[in-house]
């Protein structure tokens, strides 16, 4: 990450929560989606253009890179008998933070250790940044932060003021 700090809002995504039904394992659900298992801890998995972030025991946030009118019925067809699927496309705003200082910036708001030794690519943390509920995901190139959509402007205010100091 040697480039300049870049913060942008990711648009055009499709989101849904996936909650395993009683007795359904992360392996059962993963197999339905073509993975060996969905992550059993706060980590992510990806197949084709679909990502899963672990947000709690038996719960995941599913994120498709591109919204299509078949969402989230497409997920229901795959896993509707194994999990409860609810559309979250309008519920979260996703911000992309990359480049120099992205970690420093996030670390000034999040009280979880973002050191690459403990928060490497594929790590997920559901926490708060400046009292705003946030799900942080780390990949090879940077961080995604999902906040409740109605807090997007507050989150923008927060990173504008902090970015000035990074």
């Amino acid at each position, binding site marked *: 990450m040697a480039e300049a700090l870049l913060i942008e809002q990711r648009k055009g995504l499709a989101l849904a929560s996936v909650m395993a039904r009683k007795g359904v394992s992360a392996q059962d659900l993963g197999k339905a989606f073509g993975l060996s298992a969905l992550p059993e801890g706060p980590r992510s998995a990806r197949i084709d253009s679909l990502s899963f972030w672990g947000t709690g025991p038996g719960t995941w946030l599913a994120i498709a890179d591109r919204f299509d009118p078949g969402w989230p019925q497409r997920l229901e067809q795959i896993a509707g008998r194994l999990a409860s699927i609810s559309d979250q496309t309008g519920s979260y705003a996703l911000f992309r933070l990359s480049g120099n200082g992205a970690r420093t910036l996030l670390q000034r708001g999040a009280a979880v250790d973002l050191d690459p030794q403990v928060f490497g690519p594929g790590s997920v943390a559901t*926490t708060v940044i400046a009292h705003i509920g946030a799900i942080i995901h780390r990949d090879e190139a940077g961080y995604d932060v999902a906040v409740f959509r109605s807090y997007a402007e507050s989150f923008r205010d927060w990173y504008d003021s902090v970015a000035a100091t990074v």
Partner: protein
Amino acid sequence: MRIPCPYCGERNSGEFVYRGDAAPMRPEGAEGLFDYVYLRENPAGPLREHWYHAQGCRNWIEVTRDTRNHVISGAILAREARR
């Protein structure tokens, strides 16, 4: 104080809602309801207590905390504690 969530890892206690002693069980009928709602032991030593990880994985967890020094000796999901 940091609470060790079994799913999320160690987190600031501000992310949690405290609910107190995990021992009382809701009675079937009216008998014993007063005790269940109002009466609590006040032990000096290890106490199993409920914390809700509201700003994290949104799960109830059962934490064993020593009330004399706040040392936490364990934490499991409440749903597993009841098994």
